[in-house]
């Protein structure tokens, strides 16, 4: 709670999980250009690692707690995939909204993601501006 209040007037932080370097670069650049702070993760485990400091008390992680306003993650990643992260995130009281991006946007995946409470899902190749619009919607800059 207290952490929340402290971070309010700094830039919103976005956690980006994407294994393709160029794709990750595009996302990070676009976000930073818009004014977001970006933390990049090349795989699911790194994402989870970062999230643990948010979701678990500092007594457990013995780390400075981080705060994320949004998670953007690819579904297909080495190690833990985006869907599992979405599922895991919901177990905790405070969880940031999640946008999933994927190349395998079939009905099943969309339905599953919706069921798990995804904030938005984008199928590759998507319009980067559309994504940025959604990002602003979910994690407004002000």
């Amino acid at each position, binding site marked *: 709670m207290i952490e929340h209040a402290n971070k309010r007037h700094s830039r919103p932080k976005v956690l980006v999980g994407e294994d393709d370097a*160029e794709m990750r670069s595009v996302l990070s650049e676009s976000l930073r250009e818009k004014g977001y702070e970006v933390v990049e993760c090349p795989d699911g485990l790194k994402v989870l690692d970062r999230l643990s400091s948010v979701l678990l008390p500092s007594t457990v992680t013995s780390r400075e707690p981080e705060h994320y306003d949004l998670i953007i993650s690819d579904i297909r990643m080495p190690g833990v995939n985006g869907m599992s992260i979405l599922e895991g995130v919901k177990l905790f009281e405070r969880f940031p909204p999640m946008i999933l991006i994927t190349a*395998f946007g079939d009905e099943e995946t969309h339905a599953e993601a919706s069921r798990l409470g995804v904030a938005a899902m984008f199928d590759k*190749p998507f319009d980067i501006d559309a994504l940025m619009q959604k990002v602003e919607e979910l994690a407004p800059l002000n």
Partner: protein
Amino acid sequence: MKLALKLSSLLILGMVGLLAIDAFLTVRRETAFFRSDMEHDAKLLGHAMRTLVADAWDTSGEQTVLRLIDEANQDEELVQIRWVWLDGTRGEKFRPQVEGRLLKDVADGMELSLQDPTGNDDGRLITYVPVRVSGSRVGALEMSESMTQLQTYRRRMVARSLGMMGGLLAVSALTIAVLGTLVVGHPLTRLADRVRRIGQGDLHSELHLKTGDELSELATALNHMCCELKDAQEVARTESEARIAALEQLRHADRLATVGRLASGIAHEVGTPLNVISARAKQIENTRTAPTGLRDNAAIIGRQSERIATIVRQLLAFARPSRGIRERSDLCELMHAVVALLQPLATKHNVALVPTDCPSPPMVDVNRAQMEHVLANFIDNAIQAMPDGGSVTTRVGTKRTRSPWGENVKEALYAYLVVEDQGTGISHGDLPKIFDPFFTTKDVGEGTGLGLSLAFGIVREHQGWIDVTSEPQKGSRFTVFLPVAASTVPKSSRRGLPASVDPRLSTRAM
């Protein structure tokens, strides 16, 4: 000619034999008649003389008679008449020419004719006619006649018969030679010739024999047969071509079906680069970007486009119809290409495609499109066997082994390609059926069941075979064996490129 000779030789021999027998019998009969006549004449003469001699003996006495006979003999050429005493006494002059013991019957009153072959001529016919004269002594008239005439007659007859038989043989031989050749030999030779040419494949030229007999019928029948053979050949050729075309279509269809499956995996590969391209292009459009940023973005777009292009090229290469020629290929490189092609599909299904283990790349003459199809099929099956993920390993190598095709095969060097998974495996009952066309354990709509049967056919055509080991719930291993290319002209290339000796071949280890 030979046929005519065979047919007529028996006839001719028979005729000549009969003539010979006839001639022999005739000569013998005629000779007997001749001799009989001679005997008869001699006896008649004897009878005639007997009476006169007996009378004269009584009238004029012995000496007169003997002198008269003697005188008569001087004049006579043909028949020599002598008086003989049968008891053999009284000296040489009145001794019979033949031995006394042969004249016993004459002494008793019988007449006798004998052939006496002594002397250096044809023999003489000696006739004895007994004559009763006064006194107790037994005498006879001995008439001896030369048989030269008879022998001459006999010889002439024999010569004539022989001449006739010889003439008959000569005429027959000539007739057979001429007619046989014209009527039988020549047409048959032409027929035999035609048949030989048919055997060599010439079904077009026709043979017309105007002999008007069974031979010309045979020629007509042969021409008919050629026509029908031509038609049958045509039908067989058309059917064969149709079958090959159908098989090719089936293979192509299956290849495209695989492409369809690959396509969904490709989406992952292509979606991300496209995304990057569109985002970077937008950045270029954005006037706020610095020039260095522009160049960077352009470079990124270029690289990502190339990435997409490679994927598309790989897919197109796989989907192309097989060109039907075989090329000497590095099997490791072939396996690598297929693994790369199937990587997206594997990733989609959380399957790890382990990079191919390939210690020494073998060179094999293969139809690349077909072999890629086979390997893609195996790897796709492996991926589908592990719905919960897993890893698929591939291996390429060489091994000395014996082909299961044929009998008494020797060990030879073979290249092998292995695709192994940790999936659901194949049940013991299904294992013998997996290469049957349309056999599948997948759900309706999930594949045609043709893949493995087509793979089997392709590998067989390459003189290879497929080994399958599987254990339910443990995994399966598919191994393709192919004969290693010989370092000289390969026997298995069809419409292929001329082989050139690859100096690397001899240094490649087993």
